[in-house]
């Protein structure tokens, strides 16, 4: 069990986003450069350290949908914008009556192809890995693929290839192919994380931005099995 999971289990809560980043990084998954801060000054320093442009995100355990409470501010290009964003998020969390743990300053990931991956529990089959293209592809077309944990490498490759939107990943209209090897590796890692951390009930990596070379997990949500811990 990682330190982050142990601490969250003790406190009876889910992983905070910086902890989810930490977990991913421990498994060798690329996440944007980031700092977890608790003052406007720290925010400014963090932004200079990770490099502009940055994003500021609210970190509060009882807020699941950060954007809906106005807790995510994108494309901050200078120190003034970062300080303003810090104050704005503190204000919004006060209005939402959320227990603010701090603010995450992360480097903005350059644009690429957005995909999602995750781990969920099937009532009968147990933990399964999910994959799909982001946005409407998942929400409207339910264009997703699933495999049981543990995944083999051919399973990971097959679940990427079987979604209907696969040609988009291969590159259309002369576009270059997204890094399919990195993507398959990520799915294998998600499977391994599920296998090695039975405390994880659900993991939602959304979005993941895939480039010609490499990828970056921009947003990560990890829910834990708290009943299992009590038992």
């Amino acid at each position, binding site marked *: 069990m990682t330190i982050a999971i142990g601490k969250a289990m003790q406190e009876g809560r889910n992983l905070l986003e910086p902890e989810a980043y930490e977990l991913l990084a421990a498994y060798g998954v690329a996440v944007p450069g980031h700092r977890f801060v608790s003052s406007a000054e720290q925010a400014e320093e963090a932004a200079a350290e990770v490099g502009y442009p940055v994003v500021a995100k609210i970190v509060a355990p009882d807020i699941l949908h950060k954007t809906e409470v106005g807790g995510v501010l994108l494309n901050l290009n200078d120190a003034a914008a970062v300080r303003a964003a810090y104050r704005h998020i503190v204000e919004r969390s006060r209005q939402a009556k959320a227990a603010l743990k701090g603010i995450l300053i992360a480097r903005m990931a350059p644009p690429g192809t957005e995909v999602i991956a995750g781990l969920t529990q099937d*009532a*009968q*089959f147990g933990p399964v890995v999910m994959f799909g293209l982001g946005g409407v592809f998942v929400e409207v077309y339910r264009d997703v693929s*699933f*495999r*049981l944990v543990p995944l083999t490498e051919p399973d990971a490759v*097959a679940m990427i290839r079987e979604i209907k939107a696969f040609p988009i990943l291969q590159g259309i209209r002369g576009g270059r192919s997204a890094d399919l090897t990195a993507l398959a590796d990520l799915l294998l890692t998600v499977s391994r994380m599920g296998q090695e951390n039975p405390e994880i009930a659900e993991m939602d990596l959304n979005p993941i931005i895939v480039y010609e070379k490499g990828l970056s997990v921009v947003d990560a949500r990890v829910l834990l099995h708290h009943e299992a811990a009590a038992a």
Partner: protein
Amino acid sequence: MPADGSPSFKSRESLQAIFRPRSVAVIGASTAPEKLGYQIFRNILEAGFPGTVYPINPKATEILGRPCYPSIDTIPAEVDLATIIIPAPLVADTIRQCSKRGAKGAIVISGGFSETGPEGEALQDKLLQAARESNVAVIGPNCQGVNNPHHPLCASWPLLTRRGGVAIVSQSGTVGAALMDWASQEELGVSTFVSLGNRADVDEADLIHYFAQDPHTRTIAIYMEGVKAAHKFLQAVRQCRKPLVVLKAGRTPKGRKAAESHTRSLAGRDEVYEGVFRQLGIHRADDLEQLYDFSKALAYLPRPRGRRLLIVTSSGGSGILATDMAENTGLDVVPLPEEVARKLRAVLPKHCIVANPLDLTGDANAEMYRQVVEAAGPHFDIVGLIFGDPIPGASKVVGTEPLQLVIYLGGAEVERQERLLFHQKGIPVFPTPERGIRALSELLR
């Protein structure tokens, strides 16, 4: 379940008692021809069961000329199998009594169990307890029985006796019986038919485990609304070396709800099933017709060595339909090599279109198909032969090198006769170009 948590399958011995019994007691055998208790008893006799059959009914002295016994205690010898068609509240005790008379297996046709509500569920719990304590393997309850034409044992309905290579395992009696009926009409037959019903005891995983070792079974066709025990199912499928074709119903939210009330199945999320089936190499059928076609192709056609397909047809339209389906399912309708085309143009009538698809047109005869396969066959992995007119002698010109897929349509009486001739030779015939090519593509998955 053993201590290490791995699932245990029903023993071969107990399932043999169900599929290959030496003797059968029919408990609830009836003298009234409209009752299942009469029909099942009659079907066991008429299918030619090779052992002794004991009808049991306290109100009758004789059924179909056989002496009837008032209870299982009064029969003169022990039995392997009990087929039970009596009211639900009596079933659990009857299973215990049968066990005392040697029964290792029971088929419970009776309904009135978990499918009816909490009271029925309690009766089913009692049935299962009786089965476990007396070490009797139970098929059902609420099922349509078992038919093994290779034994033969038809403890089911309708009476069908044609032997074949596909085992049918179905949570729905009618769905399974329909498949068996089609196979029978086409003279292809089945290896065994099993209606699972409520699956209180024996489930699909036990049967996959059993049929994986059954010498008559080449392919297992399953209709299910959901798996009963996921871990056990996964293990059975991973160990099975034979093709498995599954029609999984309850794909939509309303379908899932209907499945829950039909056999109390947890239908689960369809996308997850899709992934699990792909991961396990299960052939997933989208409908009954595909369940039938895929099983037929997988049981009776060898695996092609590649994807290059030549389509030979007497019907231009059928050739195009076949080409479209081939393209959509990843088969390669590659061009006919020029030297082969030259050779064929010299022997075929002028109006034939010598290309791929190769259209022999409406006046084609069996000999022309033979000439084409002889000249072009070595250049392809598969030849799809579409007989799209009444072409007599078709069954005489089809060989095995390379793999030949037979599609016959529009041939009326000649077609029906030829189809049976093909099937008697063990060569499956498909009724439309799309169904034939779609089924073929499963061999390459």
